[in-house]
């Protein structure tokens, strides 16, 4: 049993009916990760149905389903597929399984418990966009996911679901499993492509390097998230309308969220997209079960460490892309990190910033130097050696990485990693400035009028 399954809450599945679920419905099915188990529960049916239709029809179906990308940006997958320039071959499909956003572990669960669903999703996507080669890039640390995917790929090749002339059609696909080397930045699609090509994982500038136009080896490349692709078999089997009916279009279908932090039962929960609210997923017993020891909620991050923070007043927002965007944050990778009253906000900020500073690839100056500087200033502040000017300095460093501190962020960098480090500081300084001030040494907290007398 994976560590995750043992960690997942017993209560979670008791209320939510398996029929409500799309991608995690085999999560508790014994042997669901094997081909036998997968076939027994309707596996590869979507592939068969897709192969009966022309690729364009499959692409249309997905477009109609409004399947928003589940990796972070939330861009409709069907629309993304359509960006490939016509008649440029070969095209590649790349699966982004480099899930590294702090607090996010849904893709790992999907790869560990239902690898065939992902493979079937790859097959359908590749068929729809015309890719003959697919690269499955899985984060280096996810040993079990890699093991299960490798086993599943072998099973699929043997059963004729991969390779040449799949299921008696003339469709061919090879999937290459590529383990990563442990870099957060490679979750960014252009950095992932660089890494796949054998280079240092550093993002490329878009434009001109939009993967759909100029991607892997300079060819049109579709990069999709694991959860996004895992939805495809279900959509092809049940249709776009059924998918849309699950959620609140355009936030269609279900979405898998991971709740972590100061809650009773942290875990992975698949909920109707755009319907369930933050209050429900954090407090309901069949989800995260409420605050640890009933401490009051202080803040929560709605969509991974990169997202600006939400507070009490945002609890009744539904988990809907547009509504969360409008409220000034994002659903991102679906990681909800809950902080209760006992949280020391400057320390939490320091923790998050340190992560981004360590994961900066080093390409763009503002991110490489700026995130480390933020970390150093916070470290000094926490050590009791802060200066009154440090709070404004923190804000200004943030401003030089992400001008205007607006949302969605403007960037002086190529990719959003630098601005990601800005989010927690901007949110925390805005709401909890007094906590930062409390770390300043006594002497420096005197009113400025008094310091002028000195000397």
């Amino acid at each position, binding site marked *: 049993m994976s560590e995750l399954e043992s960690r997942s809450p017993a209560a979670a599945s008791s209320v939510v009916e398996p029929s409500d679920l799309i991608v995690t419905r085999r999560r508790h099915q014994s042997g669901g990760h094997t081909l036998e188990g997968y076939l027994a529960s309707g596996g590869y049916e979507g592939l068969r149905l897709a192969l009966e239709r022309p690729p364009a029809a499959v692409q249309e179906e997905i477009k109609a389903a409004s399947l928003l990308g589940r990796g972070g940006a939330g861009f409709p997958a069907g629309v993304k597929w359509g960006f490939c320039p016509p008649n440029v071959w070969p095209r590649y499909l790349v699966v982004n399984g480099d899930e590294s956003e702090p607090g996010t572990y849904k893709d790992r669960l999907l790869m560990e418990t239902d690898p065939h669903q992902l493979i079937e999703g790859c097959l359908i996507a590749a068929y729809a966009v015309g890719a003959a080669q697919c690269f499955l890039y899985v984060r280096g640390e996810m040993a079990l996911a890699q093991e299960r995917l490798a086993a599943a790929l072998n099973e699929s090749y043997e059963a004729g679901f991969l390779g040449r002339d799949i299921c008696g059609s003339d469709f061919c696909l090879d999937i290459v499993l590529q383990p990563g080397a442990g*870099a957060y*930045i490679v979750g960014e699609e252009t950095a992932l492509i660089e890494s796949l090509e054998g280079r*240092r994982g550093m993002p490329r*500038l878009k*434009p*001109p390097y939009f993967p759909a136009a100029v991607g892997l080896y300079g060819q049109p490349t579709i990069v999709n998230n694991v959860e996004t692709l895992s939805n495809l078999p279900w959509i092809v089997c049940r249709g776009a309308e059924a998918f849309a009916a699950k959620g609140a279009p355009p936030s269609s279908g279900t979405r898998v969220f991971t709740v972590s932090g100061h809650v009773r039962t942290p875990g992975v929960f698949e909920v109707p997209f755009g319907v369930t609210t933050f209050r429900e997923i954090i407090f309901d017993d069949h989800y995260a079960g409420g605050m640890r020891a009933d401490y009051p909620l202080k803040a929560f991050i709605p969509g991974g460490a990169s997202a600006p923070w939400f507070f009490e007043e945002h609890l009744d927002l539904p988990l809907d892309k547009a509504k969360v965007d409008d409220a000034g944050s994002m659903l991102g990778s679906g990681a909800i990190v809950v902080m209760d009253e006992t949280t020391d906000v400057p320390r939490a900020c320091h923790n998050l910033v340190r992560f981004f*500073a*360590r*994961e*900066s*690839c*080093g*390409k*763009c*100056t*503002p991110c*490489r*130097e*700026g*995130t*480390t*500087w933020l970390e*150093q*200033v916070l470290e*000094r502040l926490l050590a009791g050696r802060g*200066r009154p*000017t440090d709070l404004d*300095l923190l804000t200004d460093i943030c*401003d*030089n*990485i992400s*001008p205007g501190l607006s949302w969605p962020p*403007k*960037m*002086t*960098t*190529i990719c959003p990693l630098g601005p990601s480090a800005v989010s927690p500081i901007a949110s925390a300084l805005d709401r909890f400035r007094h906590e930062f001030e409390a770390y300043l040494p006594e002497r420096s907290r005197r009113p400025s009028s008094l310091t002028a007398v000195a000397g």
Partner: protein
Amino acid sequence: MALDAPANPVVEFTLDGRAAAAAPGQLLIDACEQAGTYIPRFCYHPRMRSVGMCRMCLVEVDTGRGPALQPACMLSVSAGMIVETASPPVVKAQDGVLEFLLLNHPLDCPVCDKGGECPLQDQTMAFGPGESRFVEEKRHFAKPIPISDLVFLDRERCILCDRCTRFADEVAGEALIGFQNRGSHTQVNTFPDQPFDSYFSGNTVQICPVGALTARPYRFKARPWDLSETISTYPNAVGDRISVHASRNRILRIQGVDSDAVNWGWLSDRDRFSFEAVHSPERLTEPMGRSEDGELTPLSTSAALGAAAAALRAALDAHGPQSVALLGGAGLCAEDQYAWAKLAKGVLATDNVDACMGDGLAGETICALPRATIADACRPGGVVLLLSGDLREEFGTLYLRLRRSLMDGDAALLELTPLETSLSSLAACSLRVRPGDAARVVEALLETPRGERFAGIETKELAAASALLSERPLTVLLGRTSQAESAEAAERAAILLARAFPQAKFLPLLRRGAAVGALEMGLAPRLLPGRTTLAAAGDWYRRFWGAAPAEPGLDAAGILRAAVEGKIKVLILLGADPATDFPDRRLVEAALASVSTIIALDAFPTASSRRAHVLLPTATFGEREGTHVNVEGRATAVTRQVTPPAGVRVDWQVAAELADLLGFDLGLSSPRQIWEEAVRLSPLHAGVTWDGVRADLDGVLMPAAAPDAAAQDEAAKGEAPAELAGEAPADAVAAAASLPPSLRLADLELPEAPATPFDGYSFRLVADRTLYDKGTIVSHSPSLAGKAVPARLRLNPSDFERLAVGKDALVSVTSSSGAITVSAAPDERVPPAAAALALNTGGADPRDLISSEEPICEVRIVSSEL
């Protein structure tokens, strides 16, 4: 496409509120600079791929969706784009980037070699915040670590702009340095146990925007503001444009200058650091003569000149002009070459003159073949045929330019070489041609050979090469693949190609300095200045010079043979070292021993100048002024930066003074006046004025205004002749009417097909070259001298078994004319049945095996270990 599209379409955009125009596809950063607005940058380099790393060039760009910060180095200008380069958000972003860059940058400017010419310093002054808010401890690395014999790396100063690493990977193709670690721990470094041993490492030092990379020869030598700087030309075959930096009468460094036509700013390390030789304590500074006991002893300049003149007079009187011969001159300026051509052919009336040491090609062939430029060779859609040695070893910057063109998929390379070269992996077709077979293989390419194989090459490979040839515009890089085979095969191959492909152009790759320029100034038998012949222009020059040789003379090999026969009494060496450079060692030794008087003009003691009877020290690179003519026939300026030591003469002055002592007035008084005389008399140089050459960084490509067929063809194609001097063309045409004609392809006779070699022995020798050898300049440059490694005999790995010798075993190599013992090394680049040995490396000498009488050098190899 609209029919009325203008010839030069422009993209209009708005730059800081005013209208500006760019070429289609032009990068914003370049377009702004062209429009007069400099955008600060660190990582951007116009000769390399943009990476958008430093973020210094962020500007606000509005393409209709509102202004957004964009790196100007990654963005092509599009029509209607609105660009703000100094708006408050831009200024804030640039301030921010500079502050970030300076956080961990040590402020050791007072002891940093870059201080005073540092882009980081300059841009901080121009665009940056006044002070830092950074109070934490700066990042620390071990202070400068040597990453090669020549280059030091200071990682604390590095701002991670990716310029050096991109150069190493993308331009030089040797990714020996790269990024390690990530985030603020990112550093540039070499791989463990693998130094940054690149032929081109000095370029990374030049393009480093901070003082992170420094080169040993310049470290702590000077402050930039104390340097005087002039633009000059490095005297190599490509004619790399350089700037020479000197202080207190010493040259302290050389940097490449970005000439679009020539070197794009690059230099090979050998050329970049060879200035050290100028100040070598071993320089010859005193004229010398032989004392009674035969020792070289110092003389006054007048006594030395007098002795030389007396020897010349005696030889002329007793044995006639044919008893005087002149070798060398390839390393000189065009003015020196003209002066010596005039002295030898117009005063001494001898035609026994050769600037090449038996290592070149016949002067007539080079002058008559339609000449290509470097740009022709690199042009998109063209085919380049390589009939030469490895460009990387001998023509560094040409190698870099051609490599870039091949990498970009612009040109296609077809190699007909005895060994694999550094470009073979990028070649469309790379055929191994056995020494001596070049002409036969070209014949086979032009016809359709039957059978499975021809000259050891599979017929289908020949067919593929043949298809490539007929497809696209052809440029032939024509040189000598090996000194162990005669030049006739290459010459025959070239003439066959020129006749088969009338549009083909040829770049003559004579490696020695301005060797091509020397031929064009008449320093070759049967030639007179201006790519013309004694037969065609003898009378013309006789009118102006007073005399001209009565009969055609001998080339270097002929001169040496005549010397052995006692026919050459006086041998003048113009900076030439035949004892080291002539491929047939026995012949040259015998010849030097037979000549009664050797008059050597040289800056250094060499194997030849040590044997001189009269030795006149001459100026070197950096000490003389004049004009350099490269392999394309491009004239560029050579400027004087330092004063030569007392007693040292410039070569043209020696010619003038010798003439004077012989009772003739050469009428030459300064390089400028010499050039002007040459321009007046030579059909090639017509219209190329002294000032015109100096007005353009790219110099002037010759012939500039000569109304020959090639120029007319160019005009007919709608292309103006590439470069015109400032003179009115009408004058040039009028003057040209009475000038003798330059050589044309039709003037060339096809050399006899060399006899098919009889494979008496099992191996054919390839005598090739390496960048660092025991050449005079390298040996006298302390930073480079240690880089020459005694060569080993390179054999295909499979031949070791055939010979039953172990790797690194000592083998004895025997040819019909000599034998050597050398250690053998396996080398995949050498095909079976070939044996390669580099010339002049201080180890075993392939010249001991070579005979100038034989078209190829066959050798037998046996183990010499018991």
